[in-house]
């Protein structure tokens, strides 16, 4: 990121540099697969794995890659990883794989992954790149979880988690009675609306933060001015 580096807490960083609601990357899969918590976790884990490994591999091979083919080489690395992850999911979690469908394959063109490879991994060392991939993947997963929690809760009234290996329900809790469900949240419209509200919240957080920063800067400047004025006054007194 080209923004000036500023120390922020973990959660603040997650909100501020959120790839989905803050930078609008990887929106397609976020909107499409967040109908249930299970989907969100499955997709999130797949993206974390691909993003971390691709960042590591790319930071290793970047110095060796001629400039002409660096994008196709990165694409091959990412596509290979996605193929492997897809095959593993097909073997161990077939149900989940079939619901996520083409979106697993489309991780290849997920802007977050190629974007991180181009913007970060190719110019940083292995450890830093791995950490960056993990952080980005985690904040992507948190965004997916937030979206799917809202949509599943409002749309079906139930929060449910099941084991993707054998489809046994681990945890199921009805919070909203059946008569008050809002099924529109499970449809496309609900996806867009939920996304709009969450991204507006992130924007509001940023605006508030900037305002606070400005106020702090102004207070600092005022204090400095006051101190300077006092010093000048003291000097005048001394001279007298």
């Amino acid at each position, binding site marked *: 990121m080209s923004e000036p580096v500023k120390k922020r807490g973990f959660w603040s960083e997650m909100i501020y540099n959120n790839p989905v609601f803050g930078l*609008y*990357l990887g*929106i*397609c*899969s976020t*909107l*499409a697969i967040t109908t249930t918590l299970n989907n969100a976790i499955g997709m999130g884990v797949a993206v974390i794995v691909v993003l971390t490994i691709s960042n590591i591999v790319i930071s290793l091979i970047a110095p060796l890659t001629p400039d002409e083919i660096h*994008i*196709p080489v990165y*694409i*091959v690395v990412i*596509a*290979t990883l*996605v*193929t492997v992850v*897809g*095959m593993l999911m097909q073997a161990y979690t077939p149900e989940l794989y079939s619901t996520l469908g*083409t979106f697993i*394959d*489309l991780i*290849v*063109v*997920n*802007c977050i992954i*190629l974007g991180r490879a181009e913007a970060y991994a190719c110019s940083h060392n292995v450890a830093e790149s791995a950490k960056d991939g993990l952080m980005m993947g985690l904040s992507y997963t948190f965004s997916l979880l937030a979206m799917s929690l809202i949509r599943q809760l409002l749309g079906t009234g139930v929060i449910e988690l099941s084991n993707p290996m054998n489809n046994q329900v681990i945890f199921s809790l009805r919070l909203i009675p059946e008569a008050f469900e809002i099924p529109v949240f499970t*449809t*496309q*419209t*609900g*996806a*867009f*609306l939920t*996304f*709009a*509200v969450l*991204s*507006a*919240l992130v*924007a*509001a957080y940023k*605006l508030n933060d900037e305002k606070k920063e400005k106020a702090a800067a102004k207070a600092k400047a005022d204090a400095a001015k006051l101190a300077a004025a006092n010093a000048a006054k003291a000097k005048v007194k001394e001279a007298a």
Partner: protein
Amino acid sequence: MNLLTLFLSALLINNVILSKFIGMCPFMGVSTKLSSAVGMGVAVIFVIFGASVLSWALYYYCLVPLGLEYMKLICFILLIAAFVQFVEMFIKKNSPSLYKSLGIYLPLITTNCAVLYVALDNISQGYNFIETLVNSIAVPAGFMLVLVIFATIRERLAGSDTPEAWKGNPIAFVVAAIMAIAFSAFAGLV
């Protein structure tokens, strides 16, 4: 399958953007102005059509006979990247006026998920050659249709008084939500 049904369903009912959520990045990115929306739409139609027909041929004439179906993701994405480069070069050489209107959108298309989606969709649905042709033109046409409608709405939206936090993309998503309701009415068409 009836070709007209296939065309209409890919164009309107299963619209890539509003029903499958594919190609959202350029959808949000270039939809602030009508002229750029048209440019992007034409470029996308061109690239998707060419790239997915080529991918179809590569899959059935090269990968299947060799038993290398698992290579499809890698091959398709490389083919798309190469095709985009080729189209850009071709337009530069032969049609400066076309380059003027499409040139800046072409490099963007390599990572447009809609291209890879159509190529993969043609295979996973088991379409034959004619169906592939129809599908590969209908899907990007649906993309352009929504993009252009959306851009006209956003041009009007730019002048309206939106709350600070909702400015830009958040309010655009609300518009998209309303458009999705409108498009869901097409479900009864076929």
